[in-house]
């Protein structure tokens, strides 16, 4: 199956060029031609939305929602003349995920062109790029690229001499994972704590400052100029029928060549592991892997032939998420891995919902005590029942699900390893597996 997939690189086609982040290099390699096509080729906003819908492009921020459909939810300005916004989600904080960074650092104009086309299609005049505060280079490169584009008449008033006007502002976050959730992002952008909002109301009706807003991921928008320039049929010729196009796949953990690779959706996980990442490191065997970032469930090595598209991964018992593969070799302890993941969600829960605030803390404590060898057999049922009380859809946002899903997965696929920890009263993989844990001082 995967062997038959057409391979072509477009998202990363420019990143290897010298000065790929500058306007002259971007333009010399086809840059801003899609914008020109839209603005001077007589396209209406509705036609642009239709092209994106026809392409089947699905969001690359984790949920995989149809981008064209999402854009079409923005109200008709003739009936709803309120100001409207695009918020670009560049918060990239899902553990394992570092693909948007590649685009922002090395191809910032590609994102800017995608933003401009999205704004044209949704009749938005102001876009904010919410970039995680730690991504200094991404921020600076984008800021400089926006300035370059403004000078060249590509951002601001009368873009390319037409009546289209659009401002793009950079906005730095400050290290909270929950601000990647789209309504947490909006609260944060308004200068508040990043507390997700109950939905409904949805952002298209009530977003930033209560106005119509669309939130899109960086990689989603970076696809848009290609969809417009080359057309929906070309886009659908890549990937699978329900998950078209290429995707940036990160692969990290115990592999020879960790990295971010561009491949068609539907590629087999084994191909990414063996062909791109050079296989499991140190000649070892694969034990377990996470397909799409820390919130997607751990899978056993036996599932490595699954195709990386939304449906196939779901059938295999996990989720595509951000397609950030994290690989664990035979010496790794899955309980320790879950302890680290649970610690993260405990730290990042915003605390609004008791199920999540308390559930993430409990999960963390229980995984930690099982790993230390102080767990009880009942703890395994407790993990399942706690996770069952947190999700699905029991809280304001999906962070609780993000902690519950991998918990269910480890109980399902690695129950024996949990039980062995309890039975032996220690980690069966031994202390050599990890250095002593230095606790963070709270003074």
């Amino acid at each position: 199956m995967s062997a038959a997939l057409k391979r072509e690189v477009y998202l990363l086609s420019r990143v290897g060029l010298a000065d790929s982040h500058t306007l002259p290099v971007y333009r010399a390699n086809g840059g801003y031609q899609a914008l020109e096509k839209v603005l001077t080729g007589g396209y209406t906003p509705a036609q642009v939305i239709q092209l994106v819908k026809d392409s089947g492009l699905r969001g690359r921020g984790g949920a995989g929602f149809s981008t064209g459909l999402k854009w079409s939810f923005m109200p008709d300005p003739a009936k709803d003349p309120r100001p409207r916004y695009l918020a670009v989600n560049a918060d990239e904080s899902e553990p394992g995920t570092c693909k948007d960074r590649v685009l922002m650092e090395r191809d910032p104009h590609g994102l800017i062109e995608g933003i401009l086309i999205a704004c044209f299609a949704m009749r938005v005049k102001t876009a904010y790029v919410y970039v995680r505060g730690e991504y200094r280079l991404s921020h600076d490169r984008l800021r400089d690229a926006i300035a370059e584009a403004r000078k060249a008449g590509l951002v601001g008033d009368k873009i390319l001499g037409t009546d289209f006007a659009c401002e793009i502002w950079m906005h730095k976050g400050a290290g909270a994972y929950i601000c990647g959730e789209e309504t947490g992002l909006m609260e944060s952008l308004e200068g508040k704590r990043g507390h997700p909002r109950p939905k409904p109301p949805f952002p298209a009706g009530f977003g930033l400052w209560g106005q119509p807003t669309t939130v899109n991921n960086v990689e989603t928008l970076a696809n848009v100029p290609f969809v417009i320039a080359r057309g929906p049929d070309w886009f659908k010729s890549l990937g699978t029928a329900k998950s078209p196009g290429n995707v940036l796949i990160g692969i990290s953990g115990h592999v020879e060549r960790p990295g971010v690779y561009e491949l068609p959706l539907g590629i087999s996980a084994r191909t990414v592991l063996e062909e791109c990442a050079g296989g499991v490191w140190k000649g070892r065997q694969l034990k377990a892997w996470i397909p799409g970032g820390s919130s997607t469930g751990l899978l056993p090595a036996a599932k490595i032939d699954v195709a990386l598209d939304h449906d196939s991964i779901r059938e295999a018992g996990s989720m595509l998420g951000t397609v950030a593969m994290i690989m664990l070799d035979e010496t790794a302890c899955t309980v320790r891995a879950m302890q680290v993941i649970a610690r993260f969600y405990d730290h990042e829960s915003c605390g609004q919902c008791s199920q999540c605030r308390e559930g993430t803390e409990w999960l963390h404590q229980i995984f930690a005590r099982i790993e230390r060898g102080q767990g009880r057999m009942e703890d395994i049922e407790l993990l399942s029942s706690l996770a069952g009380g947190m999700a699905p859809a029991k809280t304001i946002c999906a962070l609780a699900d993000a902690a519950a899903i991998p918990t269910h997965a480890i109980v399902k696929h690695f129950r024996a390893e949990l039980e062995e920890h309890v039975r032996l009263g220690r980690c069966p993989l031994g202390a050599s597996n990890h250095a002593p844990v230095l606790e963070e001082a709270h003074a």
Partner: protein
Amino acid sequence: MSAERFLLPDGLVKELDELVTHYPERRAALIPALHRCQEELGGWLSPDVLEALAEYFRLEPVEVFGVASFYPMFHLRPVGQHVVGVCHNIACELRGAEEILATACRVTGTRPGKVSADGRFTVTRVECQGACTAAPMLVLDGAFHENLTPDSAAKLLGGVR
């Protein structure tokens, strides 16, 4: 209350005056403003600075404190001259993050979350920084250092002046 009120430096106020024009509501510039203050005013956000920002944004100080304390990048206590954050999340964990953390603590003479006795270093654990394919990593004064080994981390931190 201190006898003399702390005032934000003029240059910074000018910058903030420009920043607030990016948004339909002034308050939206608060988090970027907290970043700029932390960068310019000693690496942390003192109560004086938070109060001055509250005044600038016409908010209650408690409101500004509530926002600042929500975000891990903001330090509400003094930090060392250099701030080291060692990522301890899953991709880094799998490639030896705890050893990098232990090395960082040894070389700088401190413990996670503490300022070293000589005041030169703060070392903290940080969550995933988006450098997972170059793990393990640490952040030194805002700059990423990737693909570390305990030796390279020791050399890096030992060489900081």
